[in-house]
């Protein structure tokens, strides 16, 4: 059974009569790491929100774990991480991570144990009593990831989580994220602007084209697991990066395949 099954999803925004998504079909199998990449306005963030039932599609259906996306959201079937870590300033790091557990009515002791475990996972031991603004951007993003994974959702949705970070932090967190993905045996849908990040992380890269948002092509990433720093120097890595870049060039993206601002509306 697919973790995510998208059939004929179209999304139009009445304002300006924009077709953000047109006839999207996509199946994501358990354990996959799928990246959505494309220029600004290709609807990749919209597609992620449709999967998460945060936006309703105008037509078509989305099933998550064999049920409607709405039911999957109510069942806590996914965790989500946004570009900006979206932590709550008035909560400490530990309480931010505990928030979804509170919503699941876990008791205090159980919450405490899980928070400890998650802080170990993202290597933030000892920072539980800090407030988010006392941490660096990379650490804040690790808190956001820990929070999204705290209740062990089978699906992790990530909307350009490392977009605002510097290159070094980003590459380190890429490797950490892959480690977490392997240990948790979860499925990840990952939105990014970066071709090399998409190729490095993914088992499959979905290239999207803008106006209207459509799937322009899919590149299977058959690089060996686990990926390491050496993966980025593998000749096959460059071939795959080129393949994705060619597809993006076909859809009218600029030389780097990336445009800084992505509408999320």
């Amino acid at each position, binding site marked *: 059974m697919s973790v995510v099954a998208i059939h004929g999803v179209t999304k139009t925004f009445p304002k300006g009569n924009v077709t953000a998504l047109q006839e999207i079909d996509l199946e994501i199998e358990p354990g996959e790491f799928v990246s959505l990449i494309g220029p600004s306005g290709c609807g990749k963030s919209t597609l992620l929100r449709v999967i998460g039932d945060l936006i309703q599609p105008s037509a078509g259906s989305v099933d998550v774990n064999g049920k409607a996306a709405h039911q999957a959201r109510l069942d806590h079937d996914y965790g989500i991480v946004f570009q900006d870590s979206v932590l*709550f300033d008035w909560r400490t790091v530990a309480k931010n991570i505990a928030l979804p557990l509170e919503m699941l009515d876990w008791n205090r002791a159980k919450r405490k144990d899980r928070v400890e475990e998650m802080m170990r996972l993202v290597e933030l031991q000892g*920072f539980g009593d800090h407030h988010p603004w*006392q941490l660096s951007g990379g650490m804040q993003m690790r808190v956001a990831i820990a929070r999204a994974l705290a209740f062990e959702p089978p699906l992790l949705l990530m909307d350009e989580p490392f977009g605002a970070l510097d290159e070094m932090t980003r590459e380190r967190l890429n490797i950490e994220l892959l480690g977490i993905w392997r240990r948790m045996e979860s499925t990840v849908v990952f939105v990014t602007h970066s071709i090399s990040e998409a190729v490095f992380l993914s088992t499959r890269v979905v290239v999207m084209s803008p106006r209207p948002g459509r799937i322009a092509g899919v590149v299977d990433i058959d690089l060996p697991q686990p990926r390491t720093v050496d993966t980025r120097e593998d000749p096959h890595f460059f071939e795959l990066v080129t393949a994705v870049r060619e597809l993006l060039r076909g859809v009218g993206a600029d030389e780097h395949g990336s445009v800084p601002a992505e509408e999320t509306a």
Partner: protein
Amino acid sequence: MNVAARARDWVPAIIVFCAGIALWQLSIEIFNIQKFLLPKPWAIVHACWTQRHTLWSAGWLTLKEALGGFAIGSSAGMLFAAVLARFRRLGSALMPIAIAANAIPIIAFSPIFNAWFDPLSPAPRMATAAVLCFFPVLVNTLRGLTSVRPAQIEVMRSYAAGEVAIFRRVRVPTALPFVFSALKVATVLAMIGAIVSDYFGTFGSLGITIKNSVALFDFETAWAAILVASILGVLMYIAVSLAERFALQWDPTRQERGTA
């Protein structure tokens, strides 16, 4: 920051304050200013002592009026804001009216409240203070409750959180800094409301003490009553500030940043 450093921060303010008092005393001597224009600071302090029984009971009466009005007006403002935040359409219908009402000089209604309520009870003065507090608290609380970042709502919805959980865990904490700013303004307004209403004849109040002392050319006592009113106003303001400091310990804009 340690206590000594904190005390050092206050030194300039204290020096300016003392210099101001000295200048006041000195200008009266030099320019021979009549006491009905401005009494000497020392004479005011002296009046505070000789009139202490009157001032104490008058201050207590007026403080009760101000505190009562503050409590009623601010709670009503917060409650209304919560309702308007929940029912947005109602909010957008009532907000322009509330903002317009905020511009009305509510103090002008004070004599009317004397007709509406028993003028011998503190009710009319409390009503004036309450109405004065109501609008700024309502407008600011509503702004706070509705200035939540959309992404924070999305995070909560991804946890299948309902409106109540979002209200409690996101809207209220976001609104708190706005609410406290409004409450600080409201303490000042409550005191103004109580004193000005007192002028219309509240037996034994601070306002009437000021008015009657002036009528009797006892300017030292009038100034002493003004001093008491000022101290009470400052105390109310400080009380709210302390509550704010306690409630908003997490707020990054309120403290020195210590990066981990």
